[in-house]
């Protein structure tokens, strides 16, 4: 019987098969670090007198609590400043490469790895951040780890792991105009729930996935964790190889040929079976948003705020009632009438150049809704530079948006970019938990297209709700 892609990746990184119930020991090809989850790991190494086994397979960047304004000034918040300085000190002490604030390669760790060409097919990639699943879009086994595991990888370049189960997410059909990779993954999460993927590695398959660009595939894999899965992946193809080719760390010459020959083997065999399968038709999708306080509480934008009484399951009913209370929403209100205070475009989910281009295309020549703030935070300093080279910064600034420096920013509000209590956002990020974007803040997760259209109309909107571009003077 054949094997799945996830199983192939596992087998090819097996250092030692576990016996007597012990987990397998898996080799890690790339370990990315950031300031929030690494300090205590380096402290652990120091206490135990251990070193970093493979600094040449390790990279650090500053992202979670870096400011997006005045980055040439000392960081105002003392604890953020200390945490970032601690990362810099640890990188220096242990010989780890670091891209600090102000460096052209600084940015959200999951944007930086792929853009440097450090993320490639067939790898194992870890980081002390749950959205490491992003890198699965290259056909890599990529997953988030806790700080103890960060320490473990630093010390041994391996992780003891129990095998995952496999789940196929088959997305066939063509995505309708105005829908995106974000709508696919939000629909998947709503369908299987925030716990539906627990214990699984998801493999996204089907025509709609194959048709996505490499960056769009990253958006899909990124939110695998919101479905409860440890990792999500997509078999690499020409789209992937083209994206990797020519990047700073991409193989060259004969190495490139050897690499591509290897990568072409990275598919699920036709006779392989998955532990579970989920089917979705992309043609049925429309712009999707979340209305609640977990990413599984989503609905099409064309719908209305649900009535908790309509949920058959008692637990879901209570969760929906709690969520609506927190979100300040009344059942029956059409989503298109929900007024938005702040639009956030950015994050490891939707902070790449294609996301900025897509949003800029929508807003070009239009005016921002007067009472809506629009924050544009590129995923990395390189993305910002690229956008500026294309003149996108001008489009955003002319529209009335704020054009910020790179980082995680309002996705999780660890820096000053936070929502005020009761402030409502349409956010291209990945989590709508209570208080995620600021204490009392209310988050609706959306695609970059919905974010842009919402910034124009001031209420949750899709590009189809805007007057045609041709009509603009």
């Amino acid at each position, binding site marked *: 019987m054949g094997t799945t892609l996830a199983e192939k990746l596992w087998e090819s990184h097996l250092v030692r098969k576990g016996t007597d119930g012990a987990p397998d020991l898996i080799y890690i090809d790339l370990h990315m670090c950031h300031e929030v989850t690494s300090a205590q790991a380096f402290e652990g190494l120091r206490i135990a007198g251990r070193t970093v086994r493979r600094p040449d397979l390790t990279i650090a960047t500053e992202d979670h609590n870096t400011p997006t304004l005045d980055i040439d000034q000392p960081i105002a918040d003392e604890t953020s400043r200390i945490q970032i300085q601690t990362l810099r000190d640890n990188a220096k002490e242990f010989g780890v490469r670091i891209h600090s604030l102000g460096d052209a390669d600084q940015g959200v760790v999951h944007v930086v790895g792929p853009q440097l060409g450090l993320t490639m097919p067939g790898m194992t990639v870890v980081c002390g951040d749950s959205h490491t699943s992003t890198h699965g879009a290259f056909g890599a086994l990529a997953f988030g780890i806790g700080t103890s595991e960060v320490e473990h990888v630093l010390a041994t370049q391996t992780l003891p792991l*129990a095998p995952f189960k496999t789940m196929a997410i088959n997305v066939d059909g063509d995505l309708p105009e105005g829908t995106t990779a974000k709508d696919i993954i939000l629909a998947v999460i709503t369908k299987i729930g925030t716990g539906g993927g627990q214990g699984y590695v998801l493999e996204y398959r089907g025509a709609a996935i194959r048709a996505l660009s490499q960056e769009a595939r990253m958006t899909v894999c990124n939110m695998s964790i919101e479905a409860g899965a440890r990792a999500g992946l997509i078999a690499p193809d020409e789209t992937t190889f083209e994206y990797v080719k020519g990047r700073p760390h991409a193989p060259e010459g004969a190495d490139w040929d050897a690499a591509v020959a290897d990568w072409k083997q990275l598919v699920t065999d036709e006779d392989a079976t998955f532990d579970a399968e989920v089917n979705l038709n992309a043609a049925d999708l429309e712009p999707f948003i979340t209305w609640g306080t977990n990413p599984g509480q989503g609905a099409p934008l064309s719908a209305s705020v649900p009535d908790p009484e309509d949920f058959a399951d008692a*637990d879901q009913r209570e969760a929906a009632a709690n969520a609506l209370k927190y979100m300040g929403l009344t059942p029956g209100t059409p989503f298109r009438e929900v007024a938005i205070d702040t639009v956030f475009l950015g994050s490891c989910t939707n902070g790449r150049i294609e996301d900025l281009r897509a949003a800029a295309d929508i807003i070009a020549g239009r005016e921002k809704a007067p009472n809506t703030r629009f924050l544009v935070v590129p995923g990395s300093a390189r993305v910002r530079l690229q956008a500026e080279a294309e003149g996108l910064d001008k489009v955003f600034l002319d529209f009335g948006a704020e054009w910020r420096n790179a980082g995680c920013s309002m996705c999780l509000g660890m820096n000053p970019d936070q929502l005020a209590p009761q402030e409502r956002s349409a956010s291209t990020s990945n*989590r709508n938990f209570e*208080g995620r974007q600021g204490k009392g803040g209310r988050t609706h997760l959306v695609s970059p297209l919905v974010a842009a259209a919402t910034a124009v109309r001031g209420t949750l909107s899709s590009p189809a709700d805007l007057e045609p571009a041709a009509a603009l003077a």
Partner: protein
Amino acid sequence: MEKFTTHTGIGVPLRRSNVDTDQIIPAVYLKRVTRTGFEDALFAAWRGDENFILNQPAYKAGSVLVAGPDFGTGSSREHAVWALKDYGFKVVIASRFADIFRGNSGKQGLLAAIVEQSDIELLWKALEAEPGKELTVSLEDRTVSCGDITVQFEIDDYVRWRLMEGLDDIGLSLQHEEDITAFEKTRAAWRPKTLPEKTEPKQEIVAARPVK
């Protein structure tokens, strides 16, 4: 790590599902660089509400949390486990845990015990009927006892063994260093290395300024 065999302590019924890591410890508390001292951060937003269960005197000294399904969803922050431990929790009981949270718990000596939801309901009722009631959790027998109720819990065999022996993962893996070295010799030369550093040409990054 301390060895874990049995624990007896006050049970705290937390009747909520999907208790995510942002609720367990909000992101603002993640900026610290130490491994301890997170007790004040645990459930920080909810603790502002005087009716929250840990604000009720009978439960304040709780050490066994009995929660709804999908506990610990969300981020990989191990701080969630540190905050629970620093507060004094030794055991969290739920019918389902997020994978990363459960993994982190095992590494830090916090027992994440999986109990059927119908049994959770029994425990909740017993604990609410007599606030401050103690539970006994036996890792050896995989049971939770509360008065005359005894229910089974599930835990991975290997995690159980490590918790009972109090063993450190890194030390265990380093026993296989020869295997790691042998594996490294088989890796293809084209696999990427972060060093020496390669980048696009360096460019100056202009600092964004606040909008007037």
